[in-house]
C-alpha cells in the first residue's frame, strides 16, 4: 500500500489555510493538483508556488493534492514543507519565504522597549497572524506551547518560522513562546535567524533552563551568522519558579522581562483561582520584586474573560499598581485597554515632569540633591519620573517641547 502524508486543515469553517495530501510514491514525476475557493484568481499562482517549493525541498517525484481555503503563500509553503517532512523525517532542505521587508532585513528590538500588551496567537492558526499587528499590541507572541496540540508541534514550528519571515507585525515586537524544555530547544532550531526578537520560556523553575536556552541560541546564531540580539522573557508558573524567581531573572544577560503565569501556578499550589486573586498575590509580588531587583520588566499574566472589558481595565490598573509594566492578552480588543492602563495618568505625568525639571535644574547647578519646593526627592523617585516622562513622550501623551509648556 502506498503511504500518504497530510498537513494543514480543511473543512467548511477553515479559512486562510490549506490541506496537503502528499504521496511520495504516487508518480514518477511530480504531479500537483489544486482545488481552491480562490481558484479563478489564484489557481495558477498556487500551482507555481507549489512547484517551486517542492523543487527547493528536493522533491522530484510523487503526487500532491492541495485543497486550499484561501491560504496565503507563507501558509501554503509551510503546509507543503510539513507534509514533506512528515514523509521524510530526516529532510534537511527547507523552503523559506522571502523576508517581508528585504531591504531592512532583521532588526533587534530595544532591550527596554515598551512591553505593555503582548498578544498571544495560537501558532498553528495562520488566519490570526496577518492582521494582528494592526491592532497595535506592543508585542505579538506566536505560541508553540499550550495552544498547539502535541501532534501539530512540527507543523506549527514551520508555520511560525514562515510567518516571522514574511509578515509585517506593524511595529509589534516579534515574540515566540517555545515549549517547555527539552522540546523548546528543538523549537529554537526552527526560529532562530528568522526574524524573531524575543523568546518566551514557559514554566521556568531554575536558572539552568535559561542558561540552556541562551547556549542554544548562541550556537544557532553562530552557525547561522545571525548578529541581532534575541531577548528572553522567562515565565514563572509554579511554586518552585516563584522561589527561584530572582536567580532565574539574573541567569542571563539576554533576559529583558520576567512574566508570571497564574493558571498553572494556582493549580501548582493547590489553590482555587478566584476573581479577586488573593491566592496569587504573593506570587505576583514576588515576580515584581525579583524582576525589579534584576532590572527587568515585570509582566503580569493574561486576563482571560474577553467579554468583560471593565474587569480587564480594573485588572490592568491593579497590575500597574502592583508594579508590573505590562500584561498578556488573548484577544485584540483587549490591547487598547491594556496599553492605556499601563501609561502614566495625567496627574502622574504632571508630577513626573516637575521632578524631571527639578532634577535637570539641580544637575545644571551641580547640586547633589534634588528638591521640589521644600521637599527632597530621592533618586529612585527621580528615576521613576524619568521613566514616566519617557513613556509619555514615546506614546504621544506629551510633546517634545513639554518643558516650554510647564510654568
Amino acid at each position, binding site marked *: 500500500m502506498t503511504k500518504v502524508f497530510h498537513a494543514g486543515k480543511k473543512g467548511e469553517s477553515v479559512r486562510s489555510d490549506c490541506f496537503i495530501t502528499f504521496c511520495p510514491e504516487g508518480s514518477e514525476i511530480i504531479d500537483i493538483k489544486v482545488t481552491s*475557493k480562490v481558484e479563478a484568481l489564484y489557481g495558477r*499562482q498556487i500551482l507555481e508556488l507549489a512547484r517551486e517549493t517542492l523543487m527547493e525541498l528536493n522533491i522530484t517525484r510523487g503526487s500532491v493534492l492541495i485543497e486550499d481555503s*484561501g491560504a496565503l503563500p507563507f501558509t501554503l509553503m509551510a503546509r507543503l514543507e510539513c507534509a514533506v517532512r512528515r514523509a521524510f523525517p530526516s529532510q534537511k532542505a527547507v523552503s523559506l519565504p522571502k523576508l*517581508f521587508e528585504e531591504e531592512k532585513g532583521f532588526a533587534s528590538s530595544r532591550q527596554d522597549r515598551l512591553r505593555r500588551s503582548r498578544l498571544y496567537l495560537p501558532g498553528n492558526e495562520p488566519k490570526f497572524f496577518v492582521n494582528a499587528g494592526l491592532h497595535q499590541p506592543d508585542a505579538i507572541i506566536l505560541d508553540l506551547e499550550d495552544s498547539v496540540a502535541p501532534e501539530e508541534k512540527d507543523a506549527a514550528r514551520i508555520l511560525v518560522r514562515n510567518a516571522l519571515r514574511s509578515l509585517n507585525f506593524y511595529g509589534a515586537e516579534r515574540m515566540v513562546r517555545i515549549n517547555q524544555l527539552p522540546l523548546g530547544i528543538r523549537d529554537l532550531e526552527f526560529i532562530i535567524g528568522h526574524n524573531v526578537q524575543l523568546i518566551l520560556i514557559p514554566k521556568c523553575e531554575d536558572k539552568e533552563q535559561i542558561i540552556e536556552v541562551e547556549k542554544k541560541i548562541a550556537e544557532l546564531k553562530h552557525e547561522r551568522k545571525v548578529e541581532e540580539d534575541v531577548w528572553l522573557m522567562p515565565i514563572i508558573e509554579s511554586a518552585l519558579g516563584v522561589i527561584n524567581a530572582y536567580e532565574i531573572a539574573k541567569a542571563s544577560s539576554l533576559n529583558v522581562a520576567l512574566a508570571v503565569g497564574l493558571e498553572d501556578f494556582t493549580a501548582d499550589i493547590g489553590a482555587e483561582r478566584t476573581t479577586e486573586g488573593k491566592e496569587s498575590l504573593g506570587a505576583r509580588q514576588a515576580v515584581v520584586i525579583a524582576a525589579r531587583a534584576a532590572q527587568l520588566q515585570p509582566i503580569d499574566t493574561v486576563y482571560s474573560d474577553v467579554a468583560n472589558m471593565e474587569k480587564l481595565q480594573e485588572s490592568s490598573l491593579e497590575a500597574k499598581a502592583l508594579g508590573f509594566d505590562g500584561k498578556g492578552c488573548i484577544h485584540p480588543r483587549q490591547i487598547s485597554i491594556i496599553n492605556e492602563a499601563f501609561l502614566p495618568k495625567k496627574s502622574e505625568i504632571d508630577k513626573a515632569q516637575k521632578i524631571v525639571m527639578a532634577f535637570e535644574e539641580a544637575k545644571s547647578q551641580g547640586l547633589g540633591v534634588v528638591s521640589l519646593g521644600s521637599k527632597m526627592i530621592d533618586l529612585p523617585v527621580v528615576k521613576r519620573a524619568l521613566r514616566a516622562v519617557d513613556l509619555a513622550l514615546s506614546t504621544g501623551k506629551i510633546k517634545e517641547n513639554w518643558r516650554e509648556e510647564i510654568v
Partner: protein
Amino acid sequence: MSYQLIENALGKMVPSHINGQEVVPYQGVGKYHPSGQKAAPAISSCANYPSSGDKTVANLKTALLKAGLRNGMTISTHHHFRDGDLLANQIFDIAAEEGVKDLVWFPSASFPCHSKMIRHLESGVIHHIEGSMNGPLGEFVTAGKMKGMAVLRSHGGRYQAIQDGEVHVDISVIAAPTADPFGNANGLRGPSACGLLGFALADSQYADKVIVVSDNLVPFPCHPWQIQGNYVDYVVSVEQVGDPSKIVSGTTQITKSPDRLLIAELATRFAIEAGIVQDGFSFQAGAGGTSLAFAIFLEKFMEENQIRARFVRGGSTQYLVKMLEKGLTDYILDGQTFDLEGVRSMREHPCHVDTSPFTSYNYHGKGNFASLIDVVILGATEVDLNFNANVVTHSDGKLLHGLGGWQNCLFSKCTILPIPSFRDRLPVIRDQVTTVCGPGELIDVIITERGIAINPLREDLIAKTKGSNLPIRPLEDIKEEVDKLCGKPDLPVLDEEVVAAIKWVDGTVIDAVRKLK
C-alpha cells in the same frame, strides 16, 4: 444575440436591449433626463367590487386564477419576511400546476429560501428574474442557465421602474402580517409581524391586480393601513404567511471579528474628526456586523458628548431603537425592520416612522430622503482605484448579492465604505471592479483595517481630517500592501455573453454581468 454591446459613460460595455426592450446606457450621475408621463394603471370601478368590502377568496390559487394568471405575465412579491418568505415559492408552484409558462418573477429581493425557484427556471415556468439574485440563484444565472437576462435594480430603482412604466406588474402578491377583508394591511401586528410593507407600495399603486395574503385577518379597519385596501383586488387568509423565526435577519448581530471592529471604530472616528457628528445630524447604518458596530461606537460618543441626531435611517434594529428611546435621536425613519425590537418600536413609538422606496430612494421624484443624510455606512465586495464599487458580484465573477438600497444611499453627503482590505486572500481593492454598481464620484471614503482612503474629489473631507491621528493613506498605497501580501490576482476568464444587467437609479444601464466560462 438579441442585443448589441454599447459603451456607457463609465466605459463599460452594456447591452442595448434587455429581453427585447431597448434600454439607455448609463450617462453619468444626474445626466439622464427622463421625459414623458408616468405609467397609468387602468381605471377601476366600485361597481366591480363587493359593497360589503369583503374581498376574501378561498385560497391563493383561486386569487391567482381570478387575477387572470397566464403565460408571460410579470408577478411581483416582496422580501419583508426575508428568508422566512413562504409565498413566492407557492405562487410559482401553482403556476407550474396550471401549466403556465414564461413568467417574469419580479421580487424586491430574493433569499436562500427561494433557491427552489431553480426548478421553475429550468422547466420554463419562469423565463427570468428581475430583482436581487443571491446564493444559488446567482450561481444559476452566472452559469448562463436562465432563459432571459436578469435585471438588478436598487430599491429606489425598482420603484422608478414601476412608476416610469419600464416594468408593468400584472399581478402583485403582498404578504401581510395583518390585514382586513377590504385589503388594508400592515406589518405591525400578528404572528408574522415584520414592521412595515414599504417595498410593496409601488406594486399596490401600479399593478393590474393586487392580492393581499395574511395569517392574521382582522375585521375592518386594519389600521394603520400601510397598504391601502382601495388598491387591492383579492384577500386570502392562510394558516401561515411567513416563518417568523427567519424574518429576523442573520446580519443583525454585531460583528465579533476584531478586524471588523477595528474598521468600524475607524469609521466612527473618521465621522467624528470630519465634524459630521454634531447636534441635529443624521446617519444611516443598516444591517451587517460592521455597520451595527459603527452605530454602537457612535452611540457611545454621542452619549458622552451629549449629541442628539435629528434622524437616523434604518433598517432598524434593537440598537437604533435604544438610541431613540434614550433620546439620542428625534426620529427613526425606517425602510425595513431587521429585528423584533424594531417591529415593537415601530408599533409603539410615534417617532419611529415607516418610509418607503418612494419617499427615501426614488430618483424620478421631486427629491428623496437619501440625499439629506449626513453620513451613511455601506458595504462592498470590491472597490477600485477610481473609488467605483461593486456589491453584486465577487472577484471571480459570480453574482451573489442584490443591490438593496445601496445605490440610492450613495447620494448622502458622506458615503463611507468600511470594508476589509482582503477576504480569504481575495483583495478587495482592484485595478477595476468586476461589476460597477456605484460610480466613484459618489463614494467618499474607503475604510479598511489597513488605513483610510479619502476620495481626492472630497477636498473638504481631506482638509478637515488633516492633522488628525487617523491612518489616512492613498488607496493605491493600501492596495499595494495587500497585493504584496496576497499576490496580485489573475483576472477571471469570463464569456462575452451578458447574463444580468445592472441598472443605475435612473433606469440606465451601468454595467453587465458576464457568463462564467
